[in-house]
């Protein structure tokens, strides 16, 4: 893959020097801080609402560290995945429409290197940001709740990360396939909601990567669950998605 190292260097510098450094890492750190705090305050907020309604009695068990982790994972499952879709929609199409891809690709930079570098740099950012956000969540939870089963959160986040990386690859594919960022984002949202819907169907959830969507939250509450097929098919889908993204981009005229 000609030009891979030089282009990866450019991608990582771009992350460091533009808005890309702040969006997903910022969200993950923000949710890492606020999830334990929201979990701790939720019972008090609900009780205060109940006292304003005579006759209404709401019993809520005392919040635990697990509530903080569930809150964090919910944020990852919804808001962060949508942020990945929106930011990923322009990862190739943006370079194509601004003309930067033309200048780079008329130098010794192969199209395969261009696409793989995009996937790799986004994945590196996502993994680093997720590790940071999770560490922050564990630390704040430890302070607010005086400890908790951090290993479960780490397991749940790891499962989520497989699906999130798959979404990165899928968005790179859509961004390579569609000239419009809007169309790529629309296709990405369609993919996300379709897998969400499909995950409710038992056989699909057990035997394919769509099971990762629900498995993330289950990992916090269930002692053990069989994730072999969802993870294995997820990894295979990541590979196939990357190959498809390269193939589509190589056939395109710029």
């Amino acid at each position: 893959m000609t030009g891979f190292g030089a282009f990866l260097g450019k991608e990582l510098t771009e992350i460091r020097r533009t808005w890309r450094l702040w969006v997903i890492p910022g969200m993950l750190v923000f949710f890492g801080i606020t999830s334990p705090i929201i979990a701790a305050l939720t019972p008090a907020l609900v009780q205060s609402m109940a006292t304003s309604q005579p006759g209404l009695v709401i019993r809520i068990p005392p919040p635990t560290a697990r509530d903080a982790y569930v809150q964090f994972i919910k944020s990852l499952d919804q808001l962060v995945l949508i942020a990945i879709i929106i930011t990923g929609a322009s990862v190739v199409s943006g370079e194509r429409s601004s003309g930067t891809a033309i200048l780079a690709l008329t130098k010794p930079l192969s199209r395969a290197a261009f696409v793989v570098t995009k996937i790799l740099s986004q994945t590196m950012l996502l993994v680093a940001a997720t590790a940071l956000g999770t560490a922050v969540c564990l630390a704040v939870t430890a302070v607010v709740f005086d400890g908790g089963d951090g290993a479960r959160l780490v397991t749940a986040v790891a499962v989520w990360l497989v699906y999130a990386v798959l979404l990165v690859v899928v968005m790179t594919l859509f961004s390579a396939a569609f000239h419009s960022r809007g169309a790529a984002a629309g296709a990405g949202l369609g993919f996300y909601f379709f897998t969400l819907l499909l995950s409710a169907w038992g056989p699909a959830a057990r035997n394919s990567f769509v099971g990762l969507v629900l498995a993330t939250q289950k990992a916090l509450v269930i002692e053990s669950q069989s994730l072999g097929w969802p993870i294995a098919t997820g990894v295979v889908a990541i590979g196939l998605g990357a190959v498809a993204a390269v193939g589509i981009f190589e056939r395109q005229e710029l």
Partner: protein
Amino acid sequence: MTVIRPDESAAIELRGLTKRFGDAIALDGVDLVVRPGIVFGFLGRNGAGKTTALRILSGLARPTAGTAHVLGHDVERATDAIRARIGFLPDVPGFYPWMTAREYLEFAGRLFGLDKATLDARATALLEMAGLASVTTRVGGFSRGMKQRLGIAQALINAPSLLMLDEPTSALDPIGRREVLEMVASLRGRTTVFFSTHILADVERVCDAVAILERGRVVASAGVAELTARATANRLIVEVEDSVAAAAVAGALAGRAWLKSIETDGRALHLAVSDLPSAQREIPAAIAAAGMALRRFEIGETSLEDVFVELVGGPAQ
């Protein structure tokens, strides 16, 4: 079956190059050979197919039919070998706005695998040449002219054997344009320069050879001097006593078989003629027959514009 082997000494060789977009034909069987070391102008009106040809030559698009060889390599097969030896500037170059000019040149140089010492030296020299050595702002704040100059600099970072420029002067002010043309001319003999333009004056100023593209077809390709000599129309300037006499002469000459066009400008007449000897005989005779005096009879120089107008039926610019 006859196999036509590519001319390996040619910098660019196109054989029957065709590009279709649905029903529209952008390039229609283009044949062209560009010899190494020269400055070659690829002239044509907007929409003639110049950019499409450059996109194919640089590997950004594929031909529908025909072949294109760059530096002896087939553009569809040897993309890496070609990209390593060419410099390319598109009509509207796109840069990463967060980079400085030097950072962009360093990025481009690293893609070519240049070592640090070579890259530093070339980046410094090219920034100097582009008038950007003292500019420290990011490219996002550059004017279009500055971007165009940076575009030329980045296209030269690998000391290319072939420099391909798409409308390199169209966004520049007169001074910037002159600087770019001087830079292009200075590369003659060291690098083949293939640049597309619709500005005839640029071609006349720096090009050794030119091809005229019209509606996807090469209608002429030759040295600039040879091409102007090929023109079938000669320009004549004739002056008589006054504007009234000029109008009378124009009326008397109208309809002659050798007359291609005639315009009056005060007492002067500007004529384009297809048969110079006939015009030389009949114009003075017509003036004398009308009882008027001939004050000036001059055979004008044929310009590239005359050739262009004759071949494509309208002025470029």
